[in-house]
């Protein structure tokens, strides 16, 4: 599988993702620059964490107008896989590729922690290899990770099963105490209507090697590999592609 990782000015998890793709997954990693206009044939494009454009104006607000984003938009519209972590999630929301927005943590504090997230849906490429209810331990590090949407959007997203990951306690209960940033409905990760674009605040790339504290993040990467392999073989679970968030 061929993964592309976009570097925006201010991205800082791009190399970590490239490392996981090459060294841990043994896949092909393509480094993409924000001024590129071509995704060079990647199967999945990753928008990494960091502070693109210094988080000026709003997190992700300026990065969404980078030249590469037109290619990302086209890739997504054609059913290609897109994964946004942390700042990448913020960019995807700003770009309108995912519903809602990410704002300052309710505590007003930057949080750096390992959290538990529960897999809500397995009908996305990135959770294809999980079971509903699986709990993953993933690191977070963000100041603006509070996901919000208006009531109608939240209801629509819930009804369509677009909430893919939720913050829970270790017993898998989505209680307020397990919510690190005040996100509505404990949302940690959300996908688009077509299910091929996923954004999440936690960092799967920082939970991909035992030496670094855990491997749960690998399940998202390996899911995408398996999903792609399956759909290439004419599998049945290819998501239907609906444009828009």
């Amino acid at each position, binding site marked *: 599988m061929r993964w592309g990782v976009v570097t925006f000015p201010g991205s800082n998890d791009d190399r970590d993702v490239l490392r996981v793709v090459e060294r841990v997954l043994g896949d092909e990693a393509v480094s993409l620059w924000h001024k590129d206009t071509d995704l060079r044939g990647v199967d999945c494009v990753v928008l990494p964490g960091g502070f693109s454009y210094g988080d000026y*104006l*709003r997190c992700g*607000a300026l990065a969404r*107008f980078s030249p590469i984003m037109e290619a990302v938009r086209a890739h997504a519209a054609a059913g290609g896989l897109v994964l946004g972590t942390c700042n990448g999630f913020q960019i995807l*929301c*700003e770009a309108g590729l995912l519903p*809602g*927005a990410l*704002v*300052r*943590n*309710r*505590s*007003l504090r930057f949080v750096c922690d390992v959290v538990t997230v529960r897999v809500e849906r397995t009908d996305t490429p990135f959770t294809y290899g999980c079971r509903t209810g699986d709990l993953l331990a993933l690191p977070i590090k963000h100041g603006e990770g509070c996901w*919000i*949407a*208006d009531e109608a*959007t939240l209801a629509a997203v819930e009804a369509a099963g677009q909430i893919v990951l939720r913050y829970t306690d270790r017993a898998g209960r989505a209680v307020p105490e397990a919510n690190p940033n*005040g996100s509505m409905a404990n949302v940690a990760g959300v996908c688009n209507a077509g299910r091929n674009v996923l954004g999440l605040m936690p960092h799967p790339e920082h939970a991909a090697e035992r030496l670094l504290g855990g491997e749960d993040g690998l399940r998202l990467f390996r899911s995408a590999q398996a999903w792609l392999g399956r759909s290439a073989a004419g599998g049945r679970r290819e998501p239907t592609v609906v444009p828009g968030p």
Partner: protein
Amino acid sequence: MPGLVARVVVTPKRGLLDPQGKAVQQALHALGFGEVTDVRVGKYVELRLHDLAAADAEARVRAMCERLLANGVIEDFRLEVGTERT
């Protein structure tokens, strides 16, 4: 001919939680300003414009707000266009 200046104020949407405003309100209460019942912290953006007819300016600036300066999911904006003060 004086240039145009657009003044844009971006605020968190009404009814939407503004933790920053809450924190400022608490600080004001702690300082003895108990009359404050609500604080919303937003942004002020000032734009200098040239080669633009005053009649077209508002629509242009509105488009700037909708595309970039404000995020309609979480923010409201208001704007005014005037001439540059010297």
